[in-house]
Protein backbone atom coordinates (compact mmCIF):
# COMPACT_ATOMS: atom_id res chain seq x y z
CA UNK A 1 0.00 0.00 0.00
CA UNK A 2 2.73 2.44 0.96
CA UNK A 3 4.38 1.75 -2.41
CA UNK A 4 1.35 3.07 -4.30
CA UNK A 5 0.95 6.17 -2.21
CA UNK A 6 4.61 7.00 -2.43
CA UNK A 7 4.74 6.62 -6.16
CA UNK A 8 1.74 8.86 -6.59
CA UNK A 9 3.35 11.43 -4.33
CA UNK A 10 6.62 11.32 -6.25
CA UNK A 11 4.78 12.05 -9.50
CA UNK A 12 2.96 15.00 -8.01
CA UNK A 13 6.13 16.35 -6.43
CA UNK A 14 8.07 16.07 -9.68
CA UNK A 15 5.31 17.76 -11.66
CA UNK A 16 5.12 20.61 -9.14
CA UNK A 17 8.88 21.06 -9.15
CA UNK A 18 8.88 21.25 -12.93
CA UNK A 19 6.23 23.94 -12.97
CA UNK A 20 7.83 26.00 -10.26
CA UNK A 21 11.47 25.72 -11.18
CA UNK A 22 11.29 26.18 -14.95
CA UNK A 23 8.91 28.97 -15.81
CA UNK A 24 11.23 30.10 -18.63
CA UNK A 25 10.65 26.98 -20.71
CA UNK A 26 7.57 27.79 -22.71
CA UNK A 27 4.73 25.30 -22.81
CA UNK A 28 5.00 22.84 -25.67
CA UNK A 29 8.68 23.45 -26.42
CA UNK A 30 10.51 20.17 -26.05
CA UNK A 31 14.09 20.80 -24.91
CA UNK A 32 16.81 19.40 -27.15
CA UNK A 33 19.87 17.42 -26.18
CA UNK A 34 22.56 16.59 -28.72
CA UNK A 35 25.06 13.85 -27.91
CA UNK A 36 28.28 13.65 -29.91
CA UNK A 37 29.83 10.17 -29.92
CA UNK A 38 28.06 6.82 -29.72
CA UNK A 39 30.45 4.93 -27.43
CA UNK A 40 30.16 3.95 -23.79
CA UNK A 41 29.64 7.56 -22.65
CA UNK A 42 27.51 8.95 -25.48
CA UNK A 43 25.27 5.97 -26.21
CA UNK A 44 24.55 5.53 -22.49
CA UNK A 45 23.79 9.23 -22.02
CA UNK A 46 21.48 9.31 -25.04
CA UNK A 47 19.70 6.17 -23.88
CA UNK A 48 19.21 7.27 -20.27
CA UNK A 49 18.04 10.79 -21.12
CA UNK A 50 15.55 9.51 -23.69
CA UNK A 51 14.39 6.55 -21.59
CA UNK A 52 13.92 8.44 -18.35
CA UNK A 53 12.49 11.61 -19.88
CA UNK A 54 9.80 9.60 -21.69
CA UNK A 55 9.39 12.07 -24.54
CA UNK A 56 9.91 15.22 -22.47
CA UNK A 57 13.38 15.72 -23.99
CA UNK A 58 14.32 15.36 -27.65
CA UNK A 59 17.61 13.48 -27.96
CA UNK A 60 19.83 13.39 -31.06
CA UNK A 61 22.88 11.14 -31.16
CA UNK A 62 25.58 12.11 -33.68
CA UNK A 63 27.85 9.17 -34.46
CA UNK A 64 29.67 8.65 -37.75
CA UNK A 65 29.77 4.84 -37.61
CA UNK A 66 26.70 2.75 -38.29
CA UNK A 67 28.25 -0.17 -36.48
CA UNK A 68 30.23 0.37 -33.30
CA UNK A 69 32.98 -2.08 -32.42
CA UNK A 70 33.80 -1.88 -28.73
CA UNK A 71 37.37 -1.23 -27.73
CA UNK A 72 36.73 -3.23 -24.58
CA UNK A 73 36.90 -6.95 -25.35
CA UNK A 74 38.92 -6.29 -28.54
CA UNK A 75 41.81 -7.96 -26.68
CA UNK A 76 39.62 -11.01 -26.07
CA UNK A 77 39.12 -11.16 -29.85
CA UNK A 78 42.90 -10.81 -30.33
CA UNK A 79 43.42 -13.83 -28.07
CA UNK A 80 41.07 -15.89 -30.24
CA UNK A 81 38.35 -16.15 -27.59
CA UNK A 82 35.58 -14.53 -29.63
CA UNK A 83 34.93 -13.48 -33.18
CA UNK A 84 35.09 -9.92 -34.39
CA UNK A 85 31.37 -9.69 -35.19
CA UNK A 86 30.57 -10.35 -31.53
CA UNK A 87 32.02 -7.00 -30.46
CA UNK A 88 29.99 -5.03 -33.04
CA UNK A 89 26.75 -3.22 -32.18
CA UNK A 90 24.24 -1.09 -34.05
CA UNK A 91 22.05 1.82 -32.98
CA UNK A 92 18.64 0.39 -33.89
CA UNK A 93 17.73 -0.17 -30.24
CA UNK A 94 18.35 3.47 -29.34
CA UNK A 95 16.28 4.62 -32.32
CA UNK A 96 13.43 2.11 -32.07
CA UNK A 97 13.12 1.44 -28.33
CA UNK A 98 14.13 4.81 -26.93
CA UNK A 99 13.14 7.23 -29.71
CA UNK A 100 16.65 8.67 -30.04
CA UNK A 101 17.23 10.51 -33.32
CA UNK A 102 20.39 8.76 -34.54
CA UNK A 103 22.37 10.78 -37.09
CA UNK A 104 25.27 8.98 -38.76
CA UNK A 105 27.49 11.94 -39.55
CA UNK A 106 30.66 13.57 -38.29
CA UNK A 107 30.24 16.49 -35.94
CA UNK A 108 32.80 18.99 -37.18
CA UNK A 109 32.29 22.11 -35.08
CA UNK A 110 30.42 23.33 -32.02
CA UNK A 111 29.22 26.93 -32.01
CA UNK A 112 28.73 27.19 -28.27
CA UNK A 113 27.51 30.80 -28.43
CA UNK A 114 24.70 29.88 -30.84
CA UNK A 115 24.33 26.42 -29.20
CA UNK A 116 24.65 24.61 -32.52
CA UNK A 117 26.57 21.56 -33.73
CA UNK A 118 27.75 21.70 -37.34
CA UNK A 119 27.78 18.40 -39.22
CA UNK A 120 30.00 17.19 -42.06
CA UNK A 121 27.05 17.47 -44.47
CA UNK A 122 26.83 21.20 -43.83
CA UNK A 123 23.68 20.85 -41.73
CA UNK A 124 23.55 21.97 -38.13
CA UNK A 125 21.58 20.91 -35.06
CA UNK A 126 20.57 23.21 -32.20
CA UNK A 127 20.83 22.13 -28.60
CA UNK A 128 19.84 23.24 -25.14
CA UNK A 129 22.38 20.84 -23.62
CA UNK A 130 25.25 19.17 -25.43
CA UNK A 131 27.07 15.98 -24.45
CA UNK A 132 30.57 15.59 -25.88
CA UNK A 133 31.86 12.04 -25.63
CA UNK A 134 34.36 11.63 -28.46
CA UNK A 135 36.87 9.24 -26.90
CA UNK A 136 40.50 9.68 -27.82
CA UNK A 137 42.64 10.88 -30.68
CA UNK A 138 46.17 9.58 -31.05
CA UNK A 139 49.24 11.83 -30.87
CA UNK A 140 51.11 10.03 -33.62
CA UNK A 141 54.07 12.39 -33.41
CA UNK A 142 54.67 11.51 -29.75
CA UNK A 143 56.95 8.71 -31.05
CA UNK A 144 59.76 9.58 -33.47
CA UNK A 145 59.23 7.77 -36.74
CA UNK A 146 55.61 6.81 -36.04
CA UNK A 147 52.74 8.38 -38.00
CA UNK A 148 49.29 7.66 -39.37
CA UNK A 149 51.05 6.68 -42.60
CA UNK A 150 52.73 3.67 -40.95
CA UNK A 151 49.89 2.64 -38.65
CA UNK A 152 49.02 -0.33 -40.85
CA UNK A 153 52.61 -1.61 -40.62
CA UNK A 154 52.65 -1.18 -36.84
CA UNK A 155 48.99 -1.08 -35.78
CA UNK A 156 48.02 0.80 -32.64
CA UNK A 157 44.62 -0.94 -32.65
CA UNK A 158 43.63 1.38 -29.80
CA UNK A 159 40.33 2.59 -31.23
CA UNK A 160 38.99 -0.84 -32.15
CA UNK A 161 37.76 -1.22 -35.76
CA UNK A 162 39.78 -2.61 -38.65
CA UNK A 163 43.09 -1.88 -36.89
CA UNK A 164 42.31 -4.67 -34.43
CA UNK A 165 41.60 -7.11 -37.25
CA UNK A 166 44.84 -6.06 -38.90
CA UNK A 167 46.80 -6.68 -35.71
CA UNK A 168 45.20 -10.11 -35.30
CA UNK A 169 46.27 -11.01 -38.87
CA UNK A 170 49.82 -9.86 -38.22
CA UNK A 171 50.00 -11.91 -35.02
CA UNK A 172 48.69 -14.98 -36.83
CA UNK A 173 51.09 -14.55 -39.75
CA UNK A 174 54.26 -13.69 -37.81
CA UNK A 175 57.15 -15.98 -38.69
CA UNK A 176 57.76 -18.94 -36.37
CA UNK A 177 60.03 -18.01 -33.49
CA UNK A 178 59.81 -14.32 -34.39
CA UNK A 179 59.76 -11.32 -32.06
CA UNK A 180 56.68 -9.24 -31.37
CA UNK A 181 57.31 -5.73 -29.98
CA UNK A 182 54.64 -3.98 -27.93
CA UNK A 183 54.94 -0.25 -27.18
CA UNK A 184 52.37 0.81 -24.57
CA UNK A 185 51.35 4.47 -24.33
CA UNK A 186 52.48 6.96 -21.64
CA UNK A 187 49.97 8.09 -18.99
CA UNK A 188 47.20 9.13 -19.14
CA UNK A 189 45.60 6.83 -21.70
CA UNK A 190 42.51 4.78 -22.47
CA UNK A 191 42.28 1.52 -20.52
CA UNK A 192 45.29 1.36 -18.17
CA UNK A 193 45.54 -2.47 -18.01
CA UNK A 194 44.77 -2.77 -21.75
CA UNK A 195 48.33 -3.01 -23.15
CA UNK A 196 49.21 -5.75 -20.69
CA UNK A 197 46.04 -7.74 -21.27
CA UNK A 198 46.83 -7.38 -24.98
CA UNK A 199 50.29 -8.87 -24.42
CA UNK A 200 48.69 -11.71 -22.45
CA UNK A 201 46.22 -12.45 -25.23
CA UNK A 202 48.88 -12.36 -27.95
CA UNK A 203 51.06 -14.65 -25.80
CA UNK A 204 48.13 -17.05 -25.46
CA UNK A 205 47.68 -17.03 -29.23
CA UNK A 206 51.40 -17.70 -29.68
CA UNK A 207 51.25 -20.74 -27.37
CA UNK A 208 48.68 -22.13 -29.84
CA UNK A 209 50.23 -21.16 -33.17
CA UNK A 210 53.79 -19.94 -32.64
CA UNK A 211 55.15 -21.41 -29.38
CA UNK A 212 58.77 -20.25 -29.80
CA UNK A 213 57.78 -16.61 -30.43
CA UNK A 214 59.00 -13.86 -28.08
CA UNK A 215 57.29 -10.68 -26.94
CA UNK A 216 59.27 -7.59 -25.93
CA UNK A 217 57.44 -4.74 -24.20
CA UNK A 218 59.19 -1.39 -24.54
CA UNK A 219 57.32 0.57 -21.91
CA UNK A 220 57.57 4.37 -21.66
CA UNK A 221 56.62 3.97 -17.98
CA UNK A 222 58.49 2.53 -14.98
CA UNK A 223 55.40 0.64 -13.73
CA UNK A 224 51.90 -0.28 -14.86
CA UNK A 225 48.39 -1.23 -13.79
CA UNK A 226 47.96 -4.60 -12.01
CA UNK A 227 51.69 -5.17 -12.62
CA UNK A 228 52.19 -7.84 -9.96
CA UNK A 229 49.18 -9.84 -11.14
CA UNK A 230 50.21 -9.67 -14.80
CA UNK A 231 53.83 -10.56 -14.16
CA UNK A 232 52.87 -13.52 -12.00
CA UNK A 233 50.45 -14.66 -14.69
CA UNK A 234 53.05 -14.34 -17.44
CA UNK A 235 55.51 -16.36 -15.39
CA UNK A 236 52.90 -19.05 -14.80
CA UNK A 237 51.37 -19.33 -18.27
CA UNK A 238 54.06 -18.08 -20.67
CA UNK A 239 57.44 -18.71 -19.00
CA UNK A 240 60.31 -17.19 -20.97
CA UNK A 241 58.08 -15.70 -23.67
CA UNK A 242 57.49 -12.15 -22.40
CA UNK A 243 60.15 -9.57 -21.54
CA UNK A 244 58.90 -6.29 -20.05
CA UNK A 245 61.51 -3.54 -20.22
CA UNK A 246 60.87 -0.50 -18.04
CA UNK A 247 61.59 3.03 -19.24
CA UNK A 248 64.23 3.16 -16.50
CA UNK A 249 66.07 0.27 -18.15
CA UNK A 250 65.79 1.12 -21.86
CA UNK A 251 66.11 4.88 -21.31
CA UNK A 252 63.30 5.82 -23.68
CA UNK A 253 62.24 4.97 -27.21
CA UNK A 254 64.36 7.17 -29.49
CA UNK A 255 62.98 6.14 -32.87
CA UNK A 256 60.87 3.56 -34.65
CA UNK A 257 61.49 2.59 -38.26
CA UNK A 258 58.49 1.00 -39.95
CA UNK A 259 60.51 -0.07 -43.00
CA UNK A 260 63.11 -2.04 -41.06
CA UNK A 261 60.76 -2.74 -38.10
CA UNK A 262 63.47 -1.49 -35.72
CA UNK A 263 62.95 0.15 -32.33
CA UNK A 264 65.88 2.21 -31.14
CA UNK A 265 66.47 2.74 -27.41
CA UNK A 266 69.47 3.66 -25.25
CA UNK A 267 69.73 0.03 -24.20
CA UNK A 268 69.60 -1.62 -27.62
CA UNK A 269 67.94 -1.62 -31.02
CA UNK A 270 65.15 -4.18 -31.13
CA UNK A 271 64.07 -5.76 -34.41
CA UNK A 272 60.46 -6.86 -34.65
CA UNK A 273 58.69 -9.30 -36.92
CA UNK A 274 55.35 -7.79 -35.91
CA UNK A 275 54.49 -4.92 -33.58
CA UNK A 276 51.81 -2.94 -31.83
CA UNK A 277 52.66 0.71 -31.20
CA UNK A 278 50.27 2.79 -29.11
CA UNK A 279 51.18 6.48 -29.06
CA UNK A 280 50.23 9.14 -26.49
CA UNK A 281 46.62 10.29 -26.49
CA UNK A 282 44.36 13.32 -26.19
CA UNK A 283 40.64 14.08 -26.21
CA UNK A 284 38.85 13.59 -29.54
CA UNK A 285 39.06 16.55 -31.93
CA UNK A 286 35.46 17.73 -31.51
CA UNK A 287 36.18 18.49 -27.84
CA UNK A 288 38.88 20.89 -29.00
CA UNK A 289 36.51 22.36 -31.62
CA UNK A 290 33.94 22.91 -28.85
CA UNK A 291 36.54 24.79 -26.83
CA UNK A 292 36.03 22.71 -23.70
CA UNK A 293 39.61 21.44 -23.47
CA UNK A 294 42.49 22.69 -21.40
CA UNK A 295 45.48 21.23 -23.22
CA UNK A 296 44.92 17.62 -24.19
CA UNK A 297 41.91 16.90 -21.98
CA UNK A 298 38.67 18.49 -20.78
CA UNK A 299 38.23 19.58 -17.14
CA UNK A 300 34.79 18.83 -15.71
CA UNK A 301 32.71 19.68 -12.65
CA UNK A 302 32.90 16.47 -10.58
CA UNK A 303 29.29 16.59 -9.36
CA UNK A 304 27.71 16.77 -12.81
CA UNK A 305 30.28 16.08 -15.58
CA UNK A 306 29.60 19.59 -16.93
CA UNK A 307 32.51 21.21 -18.68
CA UNK A 308 34.30 23.77 -16.56
CA UNK A 309 34.31 26.00 -19.65
CA UNK A 310 30.59 25.85 -20.55
CA UNK A 311 27.70 24.86 -18.28
CA UNK A 312 25.62 23.73 -21.27
CA UNK A 313 28.22 21.19 -22.38
CA UNK A 314 28.94 17.90 -20.61
CA UNK A 315 32.12 15.94 -21.33
CA UNK A 316 32.14 12.20 -20.72
CA UNK A 317 34.58 9.34 -20.73
CA UNK A 318 38.13 9.31 -22.02
CA UNK A 319 38.05 12.97 -23.10
CA UNK A 320 37.31 14.24 -19.58
CA UNK A 321 39.68 14.89 -16.71
CA UNK A 322 38.17 12.50 -14.18
CA UNK A 323 41.46 12.30 -12.23
CA UNK A 324 41.38 9.09 -10.18
CA UNK A 325 38.77 7.45 -12.43
CA UNK A 326 40.54 5.56 -15.20
CA UNK A 327 39.68 6.13 -18.84
CA UNK A 328 37.52 3.07 -19.44
CA UNK A 329 34.22 2.12 -21.02
CA UNK A 330 32.86 1.31 -17.57
CA UNK A 331 33.85 4.78 -16.29
CA UNK A 332 32.25 6.50 -19.30
CA UNK A 333 29.03 4.52 -18.82
CA UNK A 334 28.98 5.46 -15.14
CA UNK A 335 29.66 9.15 -15.82
CA UNK A 336 26.91 9.18 -18.46
CA UNK A 337 24.30 8.29 -15.84
CA UNK A 338 25.32 11.16 -13.58
CA UNK A 339 25.24 13.56 -16.56
CA UNK A 340 21.90 12.19 -17.82
CA UNK A 341 20.33 12.70 -14.40
CA UNK A 342 21.72 16.23 -14.21
CA UNK A 343 20.65 17.18 -17.74
CA UNK A 344 17.14 15.84 -17.27
CA UNK A 345 16.90 17.77 -14.01
CA UNK A 346 18.03 20.98 -15.71
CA UNK A 347 15.60 20.60 -18.61
CA UNK A 348 12.51 19.08 -17.04
CA UNK A 349 12.85 19.73 -13.32
CA UNK A 350 13.18 16.04 -12.47
CA UNK A 351 15.02 15.28 -9.26
CA UNK A 352 18.82 15.50 -9.36
CA UNK A 353 20.56 12.98 -7.14
CA UNK A 354 24.07 12.77 -5.70
CA UNK A 355 26.92 12.12 -8.16
CA UNK A 356 28.17 8.56 -7.65
CA UNK A 357 30.47 6.72 -9.97
CA UNK A 358 32.04 3.29 -10.21
CA UNK A 359 34.45 1.34 -12.35
CA UNK A 360 35.74 -2.19 -12.67
CA UNK A 361 38.33 -3.39 -15.19
CA UNK A 362 38.63 -7.11 -15.85
CA UNK A 363 41.74 -8.42 -17.59
CA UNK A 364 42.16 -11.89 -19.03
CA UNK A 365 45.69 -13.24 -18.58
CA UNK A 366 45.10 -16.78 -19.87
CA UNK A 367 42.06 -19.06 -20.31
CA UNK A 368 39.98 -18.83 -17.12
CA UNK A 369 42.61 -16.71 -15.37
CA UNK A 370 41.03 -13.29 -15.11
CA UNK A 371 41.94 -10.49 -12.68
CA UNK A 372 40.00 -7.39 -11.80
CA UNK A 373 40.48 -3.99 -10.21
CA UNK A 374 37.76 -1.54 -9.32
CA UNK A 375 36.70 1.43 -7.27
CA UNK A 376 33.70 3.50 -6.32
CA UNK A 377 33.82 7.28 -6.44
CA UNK A 378 31.89 10.37 -5.40
CA UNK A 379 31.76 13.79 -7.02
CA UNK A 380 33.74 15.97 -4.63
CA UNK A 381 34.14 19.74 -4.73
CA UNK A 382 37.53 19.62 -6.46
CA UNK A 383 37.65 16.22 -8.13
CA UNK A 384 36.02 12.84 -8.48
CA UNK A 385 37.22 11.19 -5.29
CA UNK A 386 37.82 7.51 -4.58
CA UNK A 387 35.46 6.14 -1.96
CA UNK A 388 36.61 2.52 -1.85
CA UNK A 389 38.59 0.18 -4.05
CA UNK A 390 39.63 -3.44 -4.51
CA UNK A 391 42.04 -5.51 -6.57
CA UNK A 392 42.36 -9.25 -7.23
CA UNK A 393 44.76 -11.02 -4.90
CA UNK A 394 47.89 -12.93 -5.92
CA UNK A 395 46.65 -16.01 -4.04
CA UNK A 396 43.12 -16.08 -5.49
CA UNK A 397 41.91 -19.63 -6.16
CA UNK A 398 41.65 -20.82 -9.75
CA UNK A 399 37.88 -20.98 -9.22
CA UNK A 400 37.84 -17.27 -8.36
CA UNK A 401 39.87 -16.41 -11.44
CA UNK A 402 37.56 -18.50 -13.64
CA UNK A 403 34.50 -16.86 -12.05
CA UNK A 404 36.06 -13.47 -12.82
CA UNK A 405 36.17 -14.39 -16.49
CA UNK A 406 32.52 -15.41 -16.54
CA UNK A 407 31.72 -12.19 -14.69
CA UNK A 408 33.54 -10.16 -17.35
CA UNK A 409 31.48 -11.80 -20.11
CA UNK A 410 28.28 -11.01 -18.25
CA UNK A 411 29.50 -7.46 -17.72
CA UNK A 412 30.15 -7.15 -21.46
CA UNK A 413 26.61 -8.28 -22.21
CA UNK A 414 25.26 -6.01 -19.47
CA UNK A 415 27.06 -2.82 -20.47
CA UNK A 416 26.43 -3.22 -24.20
CA UNK A 417 22.74 -3.78 -23.44
CA UNK A 418 22.87 -0.72 -21.16
CA UNK A 419 24.32 1.31 -24.07
CA UNK A 420 22.42 0.08 -27.09
CA UNK A 421 19.10 -1.58 -26.19
Amino acid at each position, binding site marked *: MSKISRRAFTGIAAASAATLAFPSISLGAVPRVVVIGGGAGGATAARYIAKDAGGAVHVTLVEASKRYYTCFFSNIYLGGFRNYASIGHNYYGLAVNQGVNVVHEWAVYVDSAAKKVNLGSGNSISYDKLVVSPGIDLKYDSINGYSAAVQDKMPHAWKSGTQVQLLRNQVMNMKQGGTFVMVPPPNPYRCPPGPYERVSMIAHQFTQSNPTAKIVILDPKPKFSKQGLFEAGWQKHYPGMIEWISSEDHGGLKNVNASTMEFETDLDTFKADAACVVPAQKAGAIAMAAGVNNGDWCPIIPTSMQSQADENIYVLGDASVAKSMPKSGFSANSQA*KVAANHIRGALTGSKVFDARYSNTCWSLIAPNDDVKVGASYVGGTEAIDVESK*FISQADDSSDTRAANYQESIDWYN*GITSDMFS
Partner: protein
Amino acid sequence: MKILLFVIFLLTSFCKFAFSDEHLDEQQIIAMGDIEYGEYLGSECATCHIQTGESAGIPAINGMDAEVFVALMLAYRSKLMENPVMQMIAGRLNDEQIGSLALYFSTLEPPK
Protein backbone atom coordinates in the same frame (compact mmCIF):
# COMPACT_ATOMS: atom_id res chain seq x y z
CA MET B 1 -6.93 9.74 0.28
CA LYS B 2 -3.44 9.83 -1.24
CA ILE B 3 -2.42 12.60 1.12
CA LEU B 4 -3.80 10.64 4.09
CA LEU B 5 -1.87 7.54 3.00
CA PHE B 6 1.26 9.59 2.64
CA VAL B 7 0.89 11.11 6.09
CA ILE B 8 0.38 7.65 7.57
CA PHE B 9 3.44 6.45 5.72
CA LEU B 10 5.52 9.36 7.00
CA LEU B 11 4.41 8.77 10.58
CA THR B 12 5.07 5.02 10.45
CA SER B 13 8.45 5.58 8.83
CA PHE B 14 9.33 8.15 11.46
CA CYS B 15 8.28 5.85 14.29
CA LYS B 16 10.28 2.97 12.87
CA PHE B 17 13.28 5.20 12.41
CA ALA B 18 13.03 6.82 15.81
CA PHE B 19 12.38 3.79 17.92
CA SER B 20 14.14 0.96 16.13
CA ASP B 21 17.40 -0.68 17.07
CA GLU B 22 20.53 0.07 15.14
CA HIS B 23 19.93 -2.90 12.82
CA LEU B 24 16.70 -2.67 10.89
CA ASP B 25 15.04 -5.70 9.38
CA GLU B 26 14.32 -6.12 5.67
CA GLN B 27 10.79 -4.73 5.82
CA GLN B 28 11.87 -1.65 7.74
CA ILE B 29 14.61 -1.00 5.21
CA ILE B 30 12.18 -1.37 2.30
CA ALA B 31 9.85 1.08 4.02
CA MET B 32 12.61 3.71 3.93
CA GLY B 33 12.98 3.37 0.16
CA ASP B 34 12.15 5.92 -2.51
CA ILE B 35 11.44 4.41 -5.89
CA GLU B 36 12.67 7.37 -7.94
CA TYR B 37 15.96 7.35 -6.05
CA GLY B 38 16.08 3.59 -6.57
CA GLU B 39 15.75 4.07 -10.32
CA TYR B 40 18.73 6.45 -10.32
CA LEU B 41 20.86 4.27 -8.05
CA GLY B 42 19.83 1.19 -10.03
CA SER B 43 21.40 2.58 -13.19
CA GLU B 44 24.74 1.65 -11.61
CA CYS B 45 23.59 -1.98 -11.34
CA ALA B 46 22.48 -2.10 -14.99
CA THR B 47 26.10 -1.87 -16.17
CA CYS B 48 26.70 -5.48 -15.14
CA HIS B 49 23.25 -6.97 -14.42
CA ILE B 50 21.77 -7.30 -17.89
CA GLN B 51 18.29 -5.79 -18.09
CA THR B 52 17.10 -7.79 -21.06
CA GLY B 53 17.57 -11.40 -20.02
CA GLU B 54 19.35 -13.99 -17.92
CA SER B 55 23.12 -14.23 -17.68
CA ALA B 56 25.40 -17.07 -16.67
CA GLY B 57 27.37 -15.65 -13.75
CA ILE B 58 26.03 -12.24 -12.77
CA PRO B 59 22.38 -12.87 -11.87
CA ALA B 60 19.44 -10.97 -13.31
CA ILE B 61 17.93 -8.73 -10.63
CA ASN B 62 14.89 -7.32 -12.42
CA GLY B 63 11.75 -8.40 -10.61
CA MET B 64 13.64 -9.68 -7.59
CA ASP B 65 11.62 -9.89 -4.37
CA ALA B 66 12.36 -6.76 -2.36
CA GLU B 67 13.10 -8.57 0.92
CA VAL B 68 15.46 -11.01 -0.78
CA PHE B 69 17.16 -8.07 -2.45
CA VAL B 70 17.66 -6.33 0.90
CA ALA B 71 18.92 -9.50 2.56
CA LEU B 72 21.50 -10.01 -0.21
CA MET B 73 22.70 -6.43 -0.08
CA LEU B 74 23.07 -6.55 3.70
CA ALA B 75 25.10 -9.75 3.34
CA TYR B 76 27.44 -8.10 0.83
CA ARG B 77 27.66 -4.93 2.91
CA SER B 78 28.71 -6.91 5.99
CA LYS B 79 31.06 -9.01 3.79
CA LEU B 80 29.22 -12.23 4.64
CA MET B 81 29.01 -12.76 0.90
CA GLU B 82 32.27 -12.69 -0.97
CA ASN B 83 32.31 -10.97 -4.36
CA PRO B 84 34.61 -7.91 -4.06
CA VAL B 85 32.67 -5.89 -6.67
CA MET B 86 29.42 -6.40 -4.77
CA GLN B 87 31.11 -5.75 -1.42
CA MET B 88 32.28 -2.42 -2.83
CA ILE B 89 28.89 -1.54 -4.32
CA ALA B 90 26.90 -2.52 -1.21
CA GLY B 91 29.55 -1.15 1.14
CA ARG B 92 28.67 2.43 0.30
CA LEU B 93 24.89 2.04 0.37
CA ASN B 94 22.98 3.12 3.46
CA ASP B 95 19.68 1.53 4.50
CA GLU B 96 17.57 4.08 2.65
CA GLN B 97 19.51 3.49 -0.54
CA ILE B 98 19.23 -0.29 -0.25
CA GLY B 99 15.48 0.04 0.39
CA SER B 100 15.14 2.32 -2.64
CA LEU B 101 16.93 -0.15 -4.90
CA ALA B 102 14.89 -3.07 -3.56
CA LEU B 103 11.66 -1.23 -4.25
CA TYR B 104 12.72 -0.20 -7.74
CA PHE B 105 13.94 -3.61 -8.92
CA SER B 106 10.89 -5.36 -7.46
CA THR B 107 8.69 -3.34 -9.84
CA LEU B 108 10.55 -4.41 -13.00
CA GLU B 109 9.55 -7.26 -15.26
CA PRO B 110 11.64 -10.36 -14.45
CA PRO B 111 13.56 -11.95 -17.34
CA LYS B 112 11.50 -14.40 -19.37
